[in-house]
């Protein structure tokens, strides 16, 4: 299984004509690859995810999936930024939601869900409602639901964007741990350079609006990753390289908006 985005473009209609959000975005994600989309805010990273998820039609271009049939499993599952868990369902119902929609019986879907709820460390909270949980715990519910759906492709839209720095590191480690047990290809959106480098096999650096892929950087770090390595010389080198590109983009977009 792999997929390819070919010349994706999105133009929004506005009163003063068209607003180009994305232009000529092409990239391939191969089997079991963890790819991060990194760019300044408003560059259309989330838009790309929505297109791959089939929630949004691009103005031009297409996404091509190469797969040998999915055996009734969904092609993708998305972890949303925030508000991705239903407040009217408890943790168990939220995690089992995808299975419920596919018509899996209650007992079977609860069994599968238990496993992943345990894996994200929420075993004692199955009956809790989201308003009783912290933001970080809610994101774990989202992640568990995505893995329970057992998709070919995992799409993640700044899943840890609203967490504090420490919780974020712990969650990143947990994500990598689950991911290495359940290999899937991941397309992960973030605006955090370090996060992108520590998680990804590749980092696609995007330009400001209209978003384009400016550089495709392979991260030469071995797996399993140790997030304590984040001060290693090679990581800092990549970080600086990416920052040089992004700084330019951010500055020009700031000037453009003045």
């Amino acid at each position, binding site marked *: 299984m792999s997929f390819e985005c070919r010349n994706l473009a999105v133009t929004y209609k506005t009163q003063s004509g068209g607003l180009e959000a994305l232009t000529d975005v092409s990239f391939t994600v191969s089997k079991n690859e963890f790819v991060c989309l990194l760019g300044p805010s408003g560059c259309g990273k989330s838009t790309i995810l*929505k297109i791959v*998820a089939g*929630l949004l039609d691009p103005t031009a271009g297409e996404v091509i999936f190469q797969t040998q049939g999915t055996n009734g499993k*969904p092609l*993708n*599952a*998305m972890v*949303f930024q925030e*508000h*991705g868990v*239903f*407040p*009217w*369902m*408890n943790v168990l119902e939220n995690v089992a*939601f*995808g299975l*419920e*929609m*596919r018509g899996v019986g209650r007992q079977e879907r609860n069994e599968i869900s238990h496993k992943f709820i345990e894996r994200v460390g929420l075993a004692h909270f199955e009956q809790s*409602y*989201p*308003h009783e949980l912290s933001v970080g715990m809610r994101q774990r519910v989202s992640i568990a*639901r995505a893995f329970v*759906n057992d998709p070919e492709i995992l799409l993640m839209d700044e899943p840890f964007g609203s967490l504090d720095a420490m919780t974020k590191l712990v969650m990143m480690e947990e994500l990598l741990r689950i991911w290495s047990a359940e290999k899937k290809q991941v397309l992960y959106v973030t605006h955090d350079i370090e996060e992108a480098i520590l998680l990804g096999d590749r980092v696609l650096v995007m330009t400001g609006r209209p978003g384009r892929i400016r550089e495709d950087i392979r991260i030469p770090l071995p797996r399993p990753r140790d997030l304590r390595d984040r001060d290693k010389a090679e990581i800092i080198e990549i970080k600086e390289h990416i920052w040089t590109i992004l700084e330019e983009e951010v500055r020009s977009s700031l000037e453009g908006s003045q």
Partner: protein
Amino acid sequence: MSRHEMGEKTLLIIPPVILIATLGCLEFITRMEILPSLFFPPPTVVVSTLYRMTTEGALLEHLAATVTRLLTGFVLGGIPGMILGMMMGWSLPVRRIFDPFIAALHPVPKISSLPIIMIIFGIGFVSRTIVVAVASFFPMLINTMAGVRQIHPIYFDVAQNCGASRLQVLRRVVLPGATPFILAGVRLGLNVSLSISLAVELLLADKGIGTLIWMAWQTLRIEELYATIVTAAAVGISIRLFVQFLLSRFVPWDSKTRT
């Protein structure tokens, strides 16, 4: 015990204290004839009148008639209101089509449509119930529509991403997401139904709390007048408690609905 809990307890005690204090004052003022007890019967007299009307008279029968009318009307009007409200909240075209009609009909005082309804359905039970139904239709419709529209669009994306069908989205997203608003509509709708039921009974029914109020007025039995109004107030409190029960039963997930 934390300060917060202390506050909760105090808040629970305050309304009865206010009630008893007010009644006490009224009792004193009217017994001393500062206010003429002929027009303002002391609360204890109203209570004993209530007791007499319940045991000797037909208060309960009239109460039953009003409650039946109010509930039948509410169900007949509220459920269609909820269904249309849900469709209008969910689908922009449906909203565009119906919105002008709702906007035009909603502010019309419902009791003023009674003559027209009587011309069509006669002066019997049907007409009286239909007026109540029409009145409870609007609050249910408008609340349900608002309830569906305030559901964060991301939940629809999540549902779609999980492969939900339209029916599943309705059952698992639209309906539960709108429930707090729908229940607010139930509270409004039931209260409007009560008011309209009483108004209809004042005008033409042969049974009901409204009829009793009218009879008490015509025979100038002032203490009965008050007793029946207290009965109507008790129905209002029951409505409040009923909705409270529905909230705790159906919306245990919303921290905002606790009172």
